[in-house]
């Protein structure tokens, strides 16, 4: 599954004022202590900018390294180019060439930790002054089945309905009133295709775990769950009634309404690309994909609209959440882990809790013509999130009005973590079900889900 991991992007989620002072104290104390003892120098390689970053961004990053090294004279930091993608990450992981500090999506955190592929940070994390401030649901994403903290959440998002305001207008729909039910989504998609000839609703259908990811999102929105339990004892439940309902809806839109276009192999990046090119009326992806659409696809901001995912009238219905974790290589020495924790605090966490740092990062983004104010979910809590948003308010350059349906609606919705056991494998097993429904008019949804359930259970039991 592809997530937009941006190690350099500042994260604007705030924390309590108390946490700010505690954090500053902790960083300062730790630095002074280190300096006074003159401990031997420890070197850490850290995930830095994505390949192809601008000179200004590189200069800004180097400035931050210099500042960190000044605060921590016994630590030397080397920035390493890093861009998370599934296949490259797997190869780097196997080859042992990952930097000491890197980022992974929520999707992978627990499974990597349980497979011994991330350093155990528990004893280090619990000493952090802001540890207790974490949103319990968010820190759970970096905690394995044994209760060990194996990664630190640095950003969170919720799945959202991305919609093209221009196509809504052209189809005679109100762009300020995006659909609030799945029936409305179906009706609006049909109308968009009929009136504009464009794809009304698009579903990621690539064989790279994204199709399964979006199907799981739909399942949650209808009130279902793809698995129950944790670890290798979890049970796959792919053929739940809500999954059938979601796939039936896709089948109707694809084969009856014929409003899903002609390309059923879109992935995360290509969906963004097609949407930014004005070819898609609606699709589901993370609330933060606008950044990628600006960076990679040169989207016209005026067409962009974001709304919460409609939830079915079911008490279990919820929005699938995700995010980014900072983690440490398992082969790191205790000294390197300690240094890595200081770097994570400095680089990833201080912008969440430190006004000055938050403003500085926002200024850098604006200078690099990058979006500021893209909707995310609080790593700590909603109040702190709003505080941090107020810090960077003068720098926000995203079309806030067009994001207001999401921003005003998301905190009323229940955000649910991704399936815990064998997450990527579960998504992969569900990929072919979605592909079958989108490419075979006679697809037998129930039997497809049952077959996938068998392989899914096998994936869970093997801990893959």
């Amino acid at each position, binding site marked *: 599954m592809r997530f937009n991991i941006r190690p350099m992007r500042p994260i604007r989620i705030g924390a309590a004022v108390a946490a700010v002072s505690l954090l500053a104290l902790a960083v300062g104390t730790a630095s002074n202590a280190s300096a006074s003892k003159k401990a031997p120098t420890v070197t850490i390689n850290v995930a830095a900018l994505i390949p192809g970053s601008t000179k200004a961004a590189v200069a800004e990053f180097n400035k931050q390294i210099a500042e960190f090294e000044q605060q921590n004279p016994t630590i030397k930091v080397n920035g390493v180019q890093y861009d998370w993608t599934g296949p490259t990450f797997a190869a780097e992981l*196997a080859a042992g060439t990952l930097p000491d500090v890197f980022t992974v999506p929520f999707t992978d955190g627990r499974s990597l930790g349980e497979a*011994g592929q991330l350093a155990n940070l528990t004893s280090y994390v619990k000493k952090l002054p802001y540890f207790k401030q974490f949103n319990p649901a968010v820190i759970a994403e970096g905690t394995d089945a044994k209760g060990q903290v194996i990664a630190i959440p640095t950003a969170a998002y919720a799945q959202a309905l991305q919609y093209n305001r221009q196509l809504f207008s052209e189809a005679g729909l109100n762009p300020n009133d995006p659909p609030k039910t799945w029936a409305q989504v179906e009706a609006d998609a049909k109308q968009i295709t009929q009136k504009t000839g464009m794809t009304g609703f698009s579903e990621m259908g690539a064989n790279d775990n994204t199709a399964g990811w979006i199907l799981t999102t739909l399942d949650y929105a209808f009130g279902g769950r793809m698995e129950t339990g944790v670890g290798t004892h979890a049970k796959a439940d792919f053929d739940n009634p809500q999954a059938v309902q979601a796939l039936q809806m896709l089948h109707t839109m694809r084969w009856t309404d014929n409003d899903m276009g*002609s390309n059923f*192999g879109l992935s995360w990046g290509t969906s963004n690309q097609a949407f930014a090119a004005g070819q898609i009326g609606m699709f589901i992806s993370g609330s933060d994909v606008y950044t990628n659409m600006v960076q990679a696809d040169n989207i016209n901001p005026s067409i962009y609209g974001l709304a919460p995912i409609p939830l079915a009238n079911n008490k279990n219905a919820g929005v699938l959440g995700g995010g980014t974790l900072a983690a440490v290589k398992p082969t790191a020495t205790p000294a390197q882990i300690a240094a890595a924790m200081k770097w994570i605090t400095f680089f990833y966490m201080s912008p969440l809790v430190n006004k000055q740092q938050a403003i500085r990062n926002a200024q850098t983004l604006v200078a690099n013509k990058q979006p500021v104010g893209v909707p995310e979910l609080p790593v700590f809590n909603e109040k702190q999130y709003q505080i941090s948003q107020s810090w960077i308010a003068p720098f926000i350059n995203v079309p806030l009005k067009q994001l207001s349906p999401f921003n005003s609606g998301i905190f009323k919705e229940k955000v649910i973590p991704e399936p815990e056991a064998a997450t990527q494998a579960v998504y992969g097993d569900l990929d072919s079900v979605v*592909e079958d429904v989108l490419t*075979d008019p006679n697809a037998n949804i129930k039997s497809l889900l049952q077959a996938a359930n068998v392989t899914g259970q096998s994936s869970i039991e*093997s801990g893959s």
Partner: protein
Amino acid sequence: MSKTDVMTPRSQKLDHALRGGAAIRAPRGLVLGTPASWVRRGGLSKLLFLLPLLFVFGAFSWYPIVRLVLMSLQHTNLVQPATWVGFANFSAVVHDPLFPIAVRNTAEFAGLALVFGYPIPLIAAVLISEVRSRRGLYSALAYLPVVIPPVVAVLLWKTFYDASPNGVFNTVLGWVGISAQPWIQAQHSALPSLVLESTWANAGATVIIYLAALTGVNRELYEAAAVDGAGVWKKVWHVTLPQIRTVLLITMILQIIGTAQVFIEPYLFTQGGPANATLTVMLLIYDYAFGNSLGGDYGKAAALSLMLVAFLAVFSLVYLRATRSWSSE
């Protein structure tokens, strides 16, 4: 002449030696003796010259092969210590529901490539060899797709295969009244679409091989055939094909081995979809190893790789034995 009567230059030399000629001597430098004499005879310098080659082959060919065999018997994520699991990986591969799908798709790809992709370069080569002018231009045009990097070619063909009515191929079909086709977006047409692109991309190299082989055909045979009243088809069937049969046999086995290892097209076009309709054995190996960002099942990937190697080795052996008499006639 019986087989025992065959006297090659080498055997003649040996025969001469045995009949009282020079005493039998091992090649220079390999004569056993004291280390000093071995050095004096240039053994050390030969070894020094061999070392880079031994190192390169050892490090990049032999060691990975040995490692692959060992890994196929292990469960490992290459981070934690590996555990020996015997033949469990092989068993897991065989029982994987995707395994028969991948084997079937690979066989179908190889079959389609053989039926359509194999004759096309031959026909093209025969036609090019028959034209009297601009032969070089036609050869260059035939070879041009080979020069295009595979990734670029696939991206190009992806636009051709756009399933909307505005797609390149669908627009052309529309001109002759044929409705838009789904190409790589449908399970039934995805694999043949991949074969089509693959044939286009790879035929050029085979055309050049055939053109080279055709230059070796004795023109007098064609003249003799013409005197006997043979038309073009009979000339091709009775003269051209028998004359280049050794090349034909080699290109066929190379094509079968190549298509059995098809990876670029399914990976770049469809990633094995839709609904595993283009999942091939090589892609399954890749998926085992790298399809999961958590770090794959390298043991299973190694096991399936070995199974593919073993199959192709046995197949090649059987093929070469079965066609030996034909190729040596």
